[in-house]
């Protein structure tokens, strides 16, 4: 029986190759896109899930308001972990990370350093906590002693060319010698440790053992006993304030009580976030690794869902359109005694076959497209070919999609009444045309929506790129890790300045590209009280900073390195001015200090005011900022006066190699660094473009097929019209406008939706575009033009056909 159904299904699909091709192709493309997105979302949702007991691991976070500063930190104070371990029965294990960012490392027998981008101190409980194994070394002892470290396979191979390196030594930043006590596999890319390659024993970090509840520099994870009640745990966390933090604080601030602490509006709150939530839900600035957002997961689910849905709609539309041609077959079958159920099964078998073929093609497409997709999404996804569950899921989805897309056509076709169809009267077209029309409207509505989305994302990116940031990021080369040059740095700078292509150069660790920096509290001499604290960033720069970055002074003067008095000078930005409530002229000369509690505080006097510039992402408002003339050697920014970047970089590098042999030469252009900070948006933009194109393609494939069937169904009518004197253009126009009306309706419905949802997306940016009529009209014109092109081929073909032929064919 089933074999019979399949045989007949095969035959009828083969009889209509055009129809079968369009259906299969559309469905396959939709499925391939859907599959990639599903894998992406699966990875995002299962971030950090691979660790043992991941569901019982939490991170302790700290929200503090104290001394005017308000901080939301992903980190905790050094004694937190130990306290939890000893005081809380439900805490099974704890581990702390003290991240160090990038460091230069070399094996002791080599002279060239390799830069490891993510290094961290970690407690020796590390392995036990996350269920990690070592390829070489012993997890029990590996990170117990000071100056020992564990490295990943890749790092070991980079430094030593082998993983069998336990007992070998490494030099950190040309200074400290570390012994390798373990090598582990690279950590999973979709985990918070994915970037980390070097883990050093916490024992070497002296501050980690100090009983200071003030600073928060330690990412602290706890593993709780199964079935721990989180509300109870939270209550206990709240108790820490009274028990430990305030007693400690009293030592520094005598006379402070819990009441006086709270009365001045201060607070310290500890709370937990599940390990597996960090990636998508944490919005802390200082995360250990790159995080995603649940918003992007939603956006992508939406796109993936609609992609598949569009493809199914295609199938439904084409099948029902096609069914008109099969009405006679159905009529005959029915007259011969076939019942409705058998007919439905027959048609579902056909859609099932198409779905199955599509899925196989889809997997092939997805496999080929995967590297591009990974590039696009910035992820490292693979198709789980070895997972049996994958095949079960694929099979279920195929059956489901087959049933779903076959259901409506099967229902329509099986409803045909034999008398009508055999008489050749066809169906009363109107009612069915309505559902088909709605489906077309829906498809193009989604396409319009996605076009609006794409345009808005790109226009916003464009806006960000071209916005006047208040400083000049063009032609500025930034050399990183210049501290490695040590005493040679001044000579290096002088040599660089001697190059004719270099205009100026400045040394500072603070560059106006987004990074996590924090505020400090400053006080005006005339208002030395906590409640008048000004939150301001402290940037240490030199006297070349303003001119190298073309920052604009609106009052006062630049630093002068010859003047001893300028070592206590500060240049503030307009935002600080606003917080102070002063005009630029009034601000000049006022004195500020950080040391409000001290007997003889060190004051800084304001010598200049600069225009606000965007040193953070445009998602943020510009905060208060103070520039201080202090030596800070993290990086050097060099303003070039040439476009021949390659040769000037080569010159600078050769100076570097001469002056600072053996240290890596790391440079970036400032505008590139700026770009990087919009990586997520850029990704979203590219993803939007790709999937928008796909959905438009699928929708057009459907429209093309539909237009073909429409022309075929109306071939007699077209013939009659031509005989009666209709011109080719009149007929083309008639056939095309039928569809264009639908596309126009879709556009009108979808534009407001696009406007609404993209405005929600834009709300994330403090500085954003207005969605103007240009985007709206461009989307409309684009989609309508595409529809015209798609439909007109079939329409013109039908209109050009000789009417005699069509009138004969009855």
């Amino acid at each position, binding site marked *: 029986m089933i074999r019979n159904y399949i045989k007949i299904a095969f035959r009828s699909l083969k009889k209509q190759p055009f129809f079968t091709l369009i259906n299969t192709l559309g469905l396959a493309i939709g499925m391939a896109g859907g599959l990639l997105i599903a894998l992406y979302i699966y990875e995002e949702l299962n971030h950090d899930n691979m660790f043992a007991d991941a569901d019982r691991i939490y991170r302790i976070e700290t929200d503090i308001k104290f001394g005017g500063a308000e901080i939301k930190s992903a980190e905790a104070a050094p004694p937190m972990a130990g306290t939890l371990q000893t005081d809380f029965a439900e805490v099974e294990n704890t581990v702390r990370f003290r991240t160090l960012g990038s460091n230069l490392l070399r094996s002791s027998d080599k002279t060239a350093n390799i830069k490891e981008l993510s290094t961290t101190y970690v407690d020796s409980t590390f392995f036990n906590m996350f269920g990690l194994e070592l390829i070489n070394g012993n997890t029990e002892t590996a990170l117990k002693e000071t100056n020992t470290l564990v490295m990943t396979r890749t790092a070991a191979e980079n430094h030593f060319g082998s993983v069998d390196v336990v007992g070998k030594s490494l030099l950190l930043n040309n200074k400290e010698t570390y012994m390798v006590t373990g090598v582990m596999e690279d950590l999973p890319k979709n985990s918070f440790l994915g970037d980390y390659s070097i883990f050093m024993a916490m024992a070497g970090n002296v501050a980690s053992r100090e009983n200071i509840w003030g600073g928060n520099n330690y990412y602290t994870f706890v593993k709780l006993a199964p079935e721990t009640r989180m509300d109870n745990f939270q209550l206990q966390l709240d108790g820490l304030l009274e028990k430990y933090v305030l007693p400690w604080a009293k030592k520094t601030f005598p006379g402070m009580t819990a009441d006086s602490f709270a009365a001045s509006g201060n607070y310290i709150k500890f709370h937990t976030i599940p390990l597996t939530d960090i990636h998508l839900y944490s919005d802390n600035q200082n995360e250990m690794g790159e995080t995603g957002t649940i918003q992007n997961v939603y956006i992508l689910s939406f796109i993936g869902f609609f992609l598949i849905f569009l493809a199914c709609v295609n199938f439904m539309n084409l099948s029902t359109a096609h069914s008109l041609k099969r009405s006679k077959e159905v009529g005959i079958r029915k007259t011969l005694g076939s019942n409705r159920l058998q007919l439905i099964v027959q048609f579902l078998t056909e859609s099932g076959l198409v779905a199955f073929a599509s899925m196989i093609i889809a997997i092939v497409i997805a496999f080929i497209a995967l590297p591009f997709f990974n590039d696009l999404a910035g992820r490292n996804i693979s198709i789980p070919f070895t997972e049996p569950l994958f095949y079960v899921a694929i099979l279920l989805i195929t059956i489901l999609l087959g049933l779903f897309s076959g259901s409506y056509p099967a229902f329509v076709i099986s409803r045909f009444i034999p008398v009508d169809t055999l008489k050749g*009267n*066809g169906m009363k*077209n109107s009612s069915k045309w309505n559902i088909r029309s709605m489906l077309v409207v829906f498809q193009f509505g989604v396409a319009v929506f996605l076009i609006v989305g794409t345009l808005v994302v790109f226009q916003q990116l464009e806006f960000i790129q071209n916005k006047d940031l208040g400083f000049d990021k063009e032609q500025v080369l930034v050399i990183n890790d210049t501290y490695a040059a040590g005493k040679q740095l001044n000579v290096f700078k002088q040599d660089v300045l001697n190059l004719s292509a270099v205009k100026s150069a400045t040394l500072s660790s603070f560059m106006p590209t987004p990074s996590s920096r924090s505020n400090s509290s400053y006080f005006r001499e005339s208002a030395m009280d906590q409640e008048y604290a000004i939150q301001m960033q402290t940037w240490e720069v030199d006297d070349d900073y303003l001119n190298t970055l073309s920052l604009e002074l609106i009052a006062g003067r630049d630093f002068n390195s010859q003047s001893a008095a300028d070592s206590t000078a500060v240049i503030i930005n307009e935002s600080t001015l606003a917080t102070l409530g002063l005009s630029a002229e009034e601000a000049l000369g006022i004195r500020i200090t950080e040391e409000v509690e001290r007997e003889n505080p060190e004051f800084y006097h304001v010598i200049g005011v600069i225009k606000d510039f965007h040193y953070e992402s445009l998602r943020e408002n510009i905060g208060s900022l103070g520039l201080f003339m202090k030596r800070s050697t993290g990086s050097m920014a060099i303003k070039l006066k040439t476009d021949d970047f390659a040769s000037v970089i080569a010159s600078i590098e050769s100076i570097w190699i001469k002056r600072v042999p053996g240290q890596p030469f790391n440079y970036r252009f400032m505008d590139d660094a700026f770009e990087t900070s919009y990586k997520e948006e850029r990704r979203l933009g590219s993803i939007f473009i790709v999937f928008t194109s796909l959905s438009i393609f699928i929708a057009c494939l459907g429209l093309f097929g539909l237009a073909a069937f429409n022309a075929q169904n109306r071939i*007699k*009518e077209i*013939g*009659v*019209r*031509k*005989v*009666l*004197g*209709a*011109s080719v253009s*009149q007929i083309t126009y008639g056939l095309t406008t039928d569809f264009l009306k639908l596309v126009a309706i879709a556009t009108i419905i979808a534009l407001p939706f696009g406007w609404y949802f993209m405005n929600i997306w834009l709300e994330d940016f403090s500085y954003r575009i207005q969605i103007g009529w240009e985007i709206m009209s461009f989307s409309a014109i684009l989609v309508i033009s595409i529809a015209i092109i798609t439909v007109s081929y079939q329409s013109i073909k039908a209109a050009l056909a*000789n*009417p*005699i032929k069509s*009138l004969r064919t*009855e």
Partner: protein
Amino acid sequence: MIKITNLEKYYKTEEVQTIALNKLSFEVKQGEFAAIMGPSGCGKSTLLNILGLLDDPDGGSYLFNGIEVAGYNERKRAQLRKHNIGFVFQSFNLIDELSVFENVELPLIYTGVKPAERKERVHAVLEKMQIMHRRKHFPQQLSGGQQQRVAVARAVVNNPKLILADEPTGNLDSSNGNEVMDLLTELNEAGTTIIMVTHSEHDAKFSHRIIRMLDGQKVTENVLV
């Protein structure tokens, strides 16, 4: 009005070449009612298509109102056709999606007649064909005879000088068939030239002259009047 000389038409399929019209010549005068008869496949419909400017002959001459139209391109033929010729088919060829009124209105739309005048003229012709009361119906809701009357109405609404009818009664019973023949006779009496293909000797008797064909050639001509 119509004069064809040595008209030729070939159909090439993959293997064979069919000679549908073989050096056919005859003339039809203004106001005449001519019937064309002959066995199936002898080329009657082919001839009518050429006379109706739907198709182009492969050889010979076709003078329409004294103008040589053989070799006219599609656009010129369409122009001439829509102002001068009306068609009636065996299978009516009404458009299912359009009402009776809209079907009849079509030729007027294509010749650019203004809506108000269109309505007037369609109503007039529907009145004349006695199907005014059915003007809002759709073709499927009409009997065969009624459908053919709509088709005739559509053919004459533009006041064509020539009506070409290909077996207009072929799908009708005899009483409905006679009604249609009466209509055609009336139109002819009002001055319209009519060329009709038919298999029925009965219908042929309504005409003035019968042209008999065989294998794409004229065999005889019987003048009845």
